[in-house]
């Protein structure tokens, strides 16, 4: 296949390490908000309270990460100049702003025991926006010209969503006494299984475009993600009910796996953008051409 001196056709993203960490904290926050409200409605107060605190903490870290990544951090408020439905980042900023504000308010009122009605309202808002918060980052990266992301546009929100659910379960399994953490353990195990299935489906769909998930840094993170998430889920599932140690160790391992998964997706995007073949070959195929018939260049 010919290219211009092997140079990339598209630009690599300019996002820094804050971004994959935000994918992790945003997912954790969103799914924990949902978990908290459902636990509240089912009368599991310890789980509801701790998950709310996890959600609020992750929601507070998230904007710090995002602002720190900006080229002009002092202009972060420009994110709220407009609401643009064509930009998942605009939509996501509003979701995070609303969800984060609501969960922080709810957590504060929970801790101080004041304004019950306001607290319930804030919890409801945070839970309603929690689902979108957990998945939108998948859509955000898919809405680019990066082949490994764009072609996985239907899998990525499910991958990030299931990963978010698993991490919320894992965090609650760590934070909540084990007699109250049954749903959290089931969530951790179930989320991990779904996530690994979605990952397989995504790689199958990507075909040649999925190569980055087996190469360089993305490949390393993908292996790490799989080992840690499955290992952590197995530990939680097998022994989390009886042993506090197993719940904490399994939860920590699973959380590490979830962070690694975001890093893998993040790095795969860079690798996919860097090599012109991932951009050119599928486009030629789309046009009905074979491998480039162009005169060999770059003597």
């Amino acid at each position, binding site marked *: *296949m*010919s290219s*211009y*001196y092997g*140079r*990339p*056709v*598209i*630009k690599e*993203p300019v*996002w820094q390490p804050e971004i994959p960490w935000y994918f992790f904290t945003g997912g954790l926050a*969103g799914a924990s908000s*949902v*978990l908290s409200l*459902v*636990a509240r409605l089912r009368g599991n107060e310890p789980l509801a309270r701790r998950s709310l605190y996890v959600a609020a903490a992750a929601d507070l870290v998230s904007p710090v990460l995002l602002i720190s990544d*900006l*080229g*002009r*951090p002092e*202009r972060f408020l*420009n*994110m709220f*100049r*407009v609401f*643009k439905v064509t*930009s998942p*980042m605009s939509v996501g900023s509003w979701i995070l702003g609303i969800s984060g504000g609501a969960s922080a308010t709810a957590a504060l009122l929970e801790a101080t025991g004041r304004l019950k009605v306001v607290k319930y309202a804030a919890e409801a808002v945070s839970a309603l926006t929690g*689902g*979108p918060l*957990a*998945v939108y980052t998948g*859509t955000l990266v898919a*809405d*680019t010209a990066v082949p490994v992301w*764009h072609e996985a546009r*239907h899998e990525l*929100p*499910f991958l990030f*969503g*299931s990963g978010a*659910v698993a991490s919320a*379960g894992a965090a609650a399994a760590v934070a909540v006494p084990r007699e109250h953490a*049954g*749903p*959290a353990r*089931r*969530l951790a195990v179930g989320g991990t299984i779904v996530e690994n299935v979605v990952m397989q489906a995504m790689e199958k769909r990507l075909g040649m475009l999925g190569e980055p998930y087996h190469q360089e840094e993305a490949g390393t993170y993908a292996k790490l993600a799989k080992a840690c998430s499955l290992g952590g889920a197995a530990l939680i599932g097998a022994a989390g009910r009886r042993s506090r140690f197993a719940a904490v160790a399994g939860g920590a391992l699973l959380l590490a796996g979830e962070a690694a998964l975001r890093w893998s997706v993040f790095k795969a*995007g860079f690798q996919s953008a860097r090599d*012109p073949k991932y951009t*050119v070959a599928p*486009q*030629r195929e789309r046009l009905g051409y074979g491998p480039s*018939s*162009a*005169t*060999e*260049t*770059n*003597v």
Partner: protein
Amino acid sequence: MLDSYGPEAKERMGFFTDTSVCIGCKACEVACKEWNLVPEDGLVWTGESYDNTSELGANTWRHVAFIEQSDPLRWLMSSDVCKHCTHAGCLDVCPTGSLFRTEYGTVVVQQDICNGCGYCVPACPFGVLDKRHLPRQDPPALPVLTKEEDGRVWKCTLCYDRLKGGHEPACAKACPTDSIQFGPLDELRERADKRLEKLQAENWNGARLYGRDPGDGVGGFGAFFLLLDEPEVYGLPPDPVVTTRDLPSMYRSAAIAAGAVVAGVLAAFVGGST
């Protein structure tokens, strides 16, 4: 496209870059840099023919590609630029509204609004935009939350300021062979069709228009090209598609996934809440 401008809308302006008459003088690169005060970003010898600029980016808004071919023996040159797409991915994904469509139908970054989120960079199917990593010129706004580098995204403005003054863009003005032609897009398309017809009648192998078709994946380029080989030879994508074309189905998937998150949490409480 320009309906929202009402009576202020102008004719859609653009470039037709006819690479068959490009002589690789790089006057366009220089004129662009001078007029737009685009800073110097390092001087290197790449060893890649006469190309020492390598690619479009924050500090290169015109880039002349040089391709040495042996069969047939020829030297291709082409001045690349922002395509000012009809359906511009960069503009669609920009969360601040910094990127906007001008009354001339061109796509411009408002530097006083851009907060350097970087979303447009991988959204462009041509790799046109990039973040400027050179030191920032204006004093830091705050003692915290400020970076040393410029940090904003820059690209060709199709000389928006010159257009407003009734002038043609600097690169077109400087081009000595009229390889870069500026004008109303409709006229340029007609001119390009005639030029292609002429070249084909003279048996110029590989002559083709790139980005002229309003039915392509980005709705046609505002700045299109006549190329003498396949686009990828010049480092251009053969079938660019605006990423947001798939956005409705992507939001559908995201909505279902968000619902699945809630359903998953509810399912975890089946069989007991503790």
